[in-house]
């Protein structure tokens, strides 16, 4: 049975058996945290609570949310302060934010309301993927319902605090997920990343202080305020606090999403919650948190806790916490082509190593897959992947993210790459050669 004290993110959806509308949300204590904060607390106190709770960004980078909020200047020059929700979920293999927005949109609105109060924002935007039609419908309706009740707009809950919330529907492109590219897109420009510094809390949207947080991050906030710092910290298994929405896609018996204590071991997520691999398929590789995270392998990493530090210590990143499993029917070179095609296509084109380098890596992989690989190709691939992937060699971290699965595939599945070159064909495809 779902329980909001152990599953503050998805429990309400389970209890409601689907969409949580405003009445259901409020019947389960919804908007009480925001009401208490805005009427009885202060922005500084709310920032402190979120900082003490050790909530870390759930979009992939894991930056402490309360610390980020604290970067907004205490005495800003007159003008808007912006709060932006990054709902541009486009990390391949990630499907958690869509679920939250489609089924529990008010928890996002309440989290943003609290966030806006904490940083003094008077304008808030949800930057949403253009392809998320149902999530837009549900969130748009929820915003209107909240406005009608006086929870958004001027004088929220009858206080002096006010914030306008609207949705920007993206025109596309993965690079919009990069915080500063997102701000350019919000401003109606091409989504190219900006030079940092200045960082968005100092100079973000339209040159004003701006905080950008992920959907799941915001959804954590109301529970922290309602139930307290100790409760939140105790939810996690290891050093990290709270719960995490984990997901598994690939050839498992029960692909899906589960809200579990952060730090739940990979094995438990795959074997217990996802039901293990489908009959006839062996697990070979795990992308733990989306396409831009390094492969992990079942021989070494199944018992790792899915938390920020443990996955990083193993050479990867927890990322979005939604795993993609590669089974033994999948050719590691072919999956690398798929991944590199994505990153090459989604490069914004601004800087040369990314714009030219990523397609070059993809083409080299296609040659290897189609039997045209040469003995020295792997050395060239190693060297160039390391070069393109080194932070600082490109303007933003897009290419760095692209090379995470590439370098780890070359490390863990090297025998497969070698076999392609030696045999002059793909050993995984009957007949070989044709991609």
């Amino acid at each position: 049975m779902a329980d909001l004290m152990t599953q503050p993110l998805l429990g309400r959806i389970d209890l409601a058996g689907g969409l949580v509308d405003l009445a259901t949300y409020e019947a389960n204590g919804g908007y009480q945290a925001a009401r208490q904060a805005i009427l009885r607390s202060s922005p500084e106190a709310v920032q402190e609570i979120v900082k003490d709770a050790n909530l870390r960004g759930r979009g992939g980078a894991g930056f402490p949310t309360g610390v980020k909020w604290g970067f907004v200047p205490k005495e800003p020059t007159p003008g808007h302060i912006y709060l932006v929700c990054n709902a541009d979920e486009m990390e391949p293999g990630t499907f958690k934010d869509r679920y939250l927005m489609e089924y529990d949109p008010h928890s996002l609105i309440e989290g943003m309301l609290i966030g806006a109060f904490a940083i003094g924002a008077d304008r808030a935007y949800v930057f949403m993927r253009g392809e998320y039609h149902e999530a837009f419908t549900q969130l748009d309706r929820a915003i209107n319902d909240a406005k009608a009740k006086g929870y958004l707009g001027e004088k929220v809950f009858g206080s002096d605090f006010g914030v306008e919330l609207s949705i920007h529907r993206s025109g596309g492109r993965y690079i919009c997920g990069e915080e500063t590219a997102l701000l350019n897109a919000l401003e109606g420009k091409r989504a190219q990343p900006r030079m940092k510094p200045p960082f968005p809390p100092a100079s973000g949207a339209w040159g004003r202080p701006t905080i950008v947080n992920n959907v799941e991050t915001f959804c954590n906030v109301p529970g922290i305020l309602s139930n307290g710092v100790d409760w939140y910290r105790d939810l996690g298994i290891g050093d990290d606090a709270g719960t995490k929405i984990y997901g598994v896609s690939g050839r498992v018996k029960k692909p899906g999403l589960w809200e579990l204590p952060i730090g739940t071991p990979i094995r438990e997520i795959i074997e217990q919650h996802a039901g293990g691999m489908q009959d006839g398929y062996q697990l070979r590789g795990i992308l733990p948190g989306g396409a831009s995270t390094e492969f992990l392998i079942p021989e070494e990493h199944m018992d790792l806790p899915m938390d920020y530090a443990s996955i990083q210590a193993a050479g990867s990143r927890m990322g979005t916490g939604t795993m993609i499993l590669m089974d033994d029917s999948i050719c590691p070179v072919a999956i690398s082509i798929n991944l590199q095609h994505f990153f090459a296509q989604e490069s914004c084109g601004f800087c040369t190593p990314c714009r030219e380098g990523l397609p070059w890596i993809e083409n080299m992989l296609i040659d290897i897959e189609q039997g045209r690989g040469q003995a020295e190709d792997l050395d060239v691939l190693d060297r160039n992947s390391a070069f393109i992937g080194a932070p600082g060699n490109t303007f933003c971290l897009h290419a760095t993210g692209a090379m995470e699965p590439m370098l780890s595939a070359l490390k863990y599945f090297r025998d497969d790459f070698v076999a392609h070159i030696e045999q002059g064909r793909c050993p995984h495809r009957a007949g070989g050669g044709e991609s």
Partner: protein
Amino acid sequence: MSDQIQLVEVLSAEEIDLIEAEVAHIPDRQSAAIEALRIVQDKRGWVSDESLRAIATQLEMSIEALDSIATFYNLIFRQPVGRHVIMLCDSVSCFVMGSEQVRDKVCEHLGIGLGETTADGKYTLLPIVCLGACDRAPVMTVGDKLVTHLSQDSIGEALDGFE
């Protein structure tokens, strides 16, 4: 001047109202560029050169600047599309679950390749990056509708019922 007035008149009163509603909650007119392109595309299916000029005039920006934005974003169509745009996910989770076989079947079923429109103007087929429904892979969208658990056998049924 008369030229300019005429160009704005390409947009309907409804489109202008919707664009102005977007302009109202942002600091400058040009910041509504993407919304304005989407508004017009929603009404007309795509953004023609004529529409582009009219939007640029409406937003008080150059046609070239607006086109550089329009062509950056993959959900803005600068060419005519069919009545239903099919977006077939080609990202990694769908790939693992057999999206290449599904893609081949869709192409065969419609008799077109990726990026093409059927002769009757009914469907345009495009590849798309991860649609965020990876637990139900392989997936595609047909217009606003998400279609999940695709297989080679389910394509015909999935595309039934669209006019």
